[in-house]
């Protein structure tokens, strides 16, 4: 059911995939900012889907609205070289997420379906995910005695029911597209190559931070619409691999070495010094 549902959802634009492959591939969302009209429907439907307060402000040129503990996605307006461009921001759902590697209880978890989700029963609220996330996505309820980490979960619970993420389902401008990551990258490439005048030739999220499951198309260079383009191509967890790999070596070699030194220095001191 879920498989056929997903295929149907993507339907028209992408070739059908063998059923078994679809299950293991990361789901993703392609956001095409050339089609976004800044209507905030995604914000409203996100708030409704997650029982959050409705947004009370709107995209304004020059104002960078940020996601916070009460809103998981925002649309911002940027004054660019071609005029006003809208950009939706939310969790990027990295392929190899820094938050997931940072989490010592696996509360922050990259599902095999693609969404990065947070699990309440595991989290201890250390906020190391927030320290590590290069996109500053996870937010924390500082004013609650029982705080949660909040962020976009790509409507994982809706996906499990075979439904689309709320923002994708309700987007009136078809700026959002849901599918497997591979299909969406192919689709994004197709759009760029068919309309090279409309698009800036880059898919943000294809390689950034080791690749993300939220992919962006833009009419202008990405630094003009508030993206960090200096972000590293390798995944962020790879930054700690060297350290973590050295741990077993130290754990095995250190005690041996220490015992050796201890043995070598034993009794070399003249007994007279040790009165006790």
């Amino acid at each position, binding site marked *: 059911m879920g498989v056929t549902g997903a295929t149907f959802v993507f339907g028209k634009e992408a070739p059908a995939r063998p059923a078994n492959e679809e299950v293991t591939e990361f789901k993703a969302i392609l956001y095409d900012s050339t089609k976004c009209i800044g209507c905030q429907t995604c914000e409203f439907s996100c708030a409704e889907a997650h029982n959050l307060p409705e947004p009370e402000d709107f995209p304004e040129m020059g104002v960078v609205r940020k996601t916070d503990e009460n809103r998981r996605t925002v649309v911002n307006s940027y004054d660019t070289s071609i005029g006003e461009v809208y950009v939706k921001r939310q969790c990027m759902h990295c392929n190899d997420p820094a938050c997931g590697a*940072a*989490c*010592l209880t696996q509360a922050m978890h990259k599902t095999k379906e693609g969404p990065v989700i947070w699990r309440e*029963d595991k989290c*201890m609220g250390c906020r190391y995910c927030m320290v590590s996330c*290069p996109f*500053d996505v996870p937010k924390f309820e*500082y004013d609650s005695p029982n705080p949660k980490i909040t962020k976009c979960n790509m409507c994982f619970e809706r996906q499990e029911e075979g439904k689309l993420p709320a923002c994708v389902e309700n987007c009136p401008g078809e700026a959002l597209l849901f599918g497997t990551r591979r299909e969406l990258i192919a689709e994004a490439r197709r759009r760029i190559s068919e309309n090279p005048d409309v698009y800036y030739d880059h898919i943000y999220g294809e390689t950034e931070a080791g690749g993300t499951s939220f992919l962006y198309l833009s009419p202008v260079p990405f630094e003009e619409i508030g993206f960090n383009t200096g972000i590293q191509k390798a995944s962020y967890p790879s930054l700690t691999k060297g350290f973590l790999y050295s741990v077993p070596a130290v754990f095995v070699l250190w005690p041996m070495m220490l015992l050796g030194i201890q043995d070598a220095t034993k009794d070399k001191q003249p007994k007279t010094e040790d009165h006790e």
Partner: protein
Amino acid sequence: MNNTISVPLSEEKKSRWKFFLGELKPKGKMFTWFNVISIPIMLLGLGLIVIRFWKGIGSITNLTQEVPWGLWIGFDVVTGVAFAGGAYVVTFMVYILNMKSYRSIVRVTVLNGFLAYVFYAGALLLDLGRPWNVINPIIGNGFGTSSVLFLVAWHFLLYMLAELIEFSPAIAEWLGAKRACKILSGMTLAAVIFGITLSTLHQSGLGALYLMAKEKIHTLWYSEFIPILFFVSSIFAGLSMVIFEGSITHKVFSDQISEKNHEQHHKILRGLSKVCTGALFAYFFLQVLVFVHSKNWDYLSTPMGYWYLTEMLGFVLLPMLLFYYSYRNNNITLIKVASVITMLGVIVNRLNVTVIGFRWDAAVHYVPSWMEIVVTMAVIFTEIWIFRWVINRLPVLRESPSWAKNMH
């Protein structure tokens, strides 16, 4: 038969209980300047902690969504644990290198280290949003083995255990438990080896925590060598704390210290300053290498660059030269001065990585609230209270009871 045996046993238990209760009572004068200052702060801190658990972390801290770790992590945990590094260095010198002349400072150093872990790592609980889940990585409600924090958490726990074992003979001597004392003393070497291994990994691990915050930390303080720099600096951080703490305890608790240990203390300080010189040199050299390789020359002429140079020259190079000069010239006062400058330098360095250089370019800077500072001070004062309580009762500075002397 059974009765005749159990009666004296229970009586002994009773007397031990009485002894324990008696020991709980305060000793010494109540109206000292230390008490007068520390008690109000501890009470205020306690009140703030109640508010924190009642209304959330945001009610007393200035933490933001961009800067989720502030003073409590950057100072209490990261800096506090560096200062607690003296225990693994001194036990390494005494038990592994068999430098027996340092034996008289082992117990007080291990006690200091243990309490530092209990309190400063314990202060972590205040910073956890959901502290009731703190056991999850231990009981396996998610073994986040790819997390550096997972390693650090486990190491904190295990290292506290190792230090407790290292210190436990003193507890056994206090309680007059002869058999236990013998068994526990026999476990010391294993605990020391385990403890040094753990310390190597989690002292560097505290630095490795920040490896993923690559774009967030000012480039003068971020490098892939943070773990090694943190480890090397924990050596002189810990030893400077030993020198500093030793010069205070030798004044405050001078009645407990034997004539012989008093005399030996100057020799110990000289030896430690020699080690500090070496460690500071290694650290300075590493920092220079890291800097040269990172090609950050342009940043030196910015305000952050001046701050970086201040740290490197004023708080690393200068105390190194002071330590060198003072141990060559046997200048004990200067050793103490150098240890204080070194400690300030370690605080500056850890805060530069964790707080000052973290999101240094943000529009709104994180500055700790007065309440965060009060809670931090309350934690430190409580630790000193416990430290004093233990020193006044257990054979830490004073000689072990005569029956225990031939045990180690």
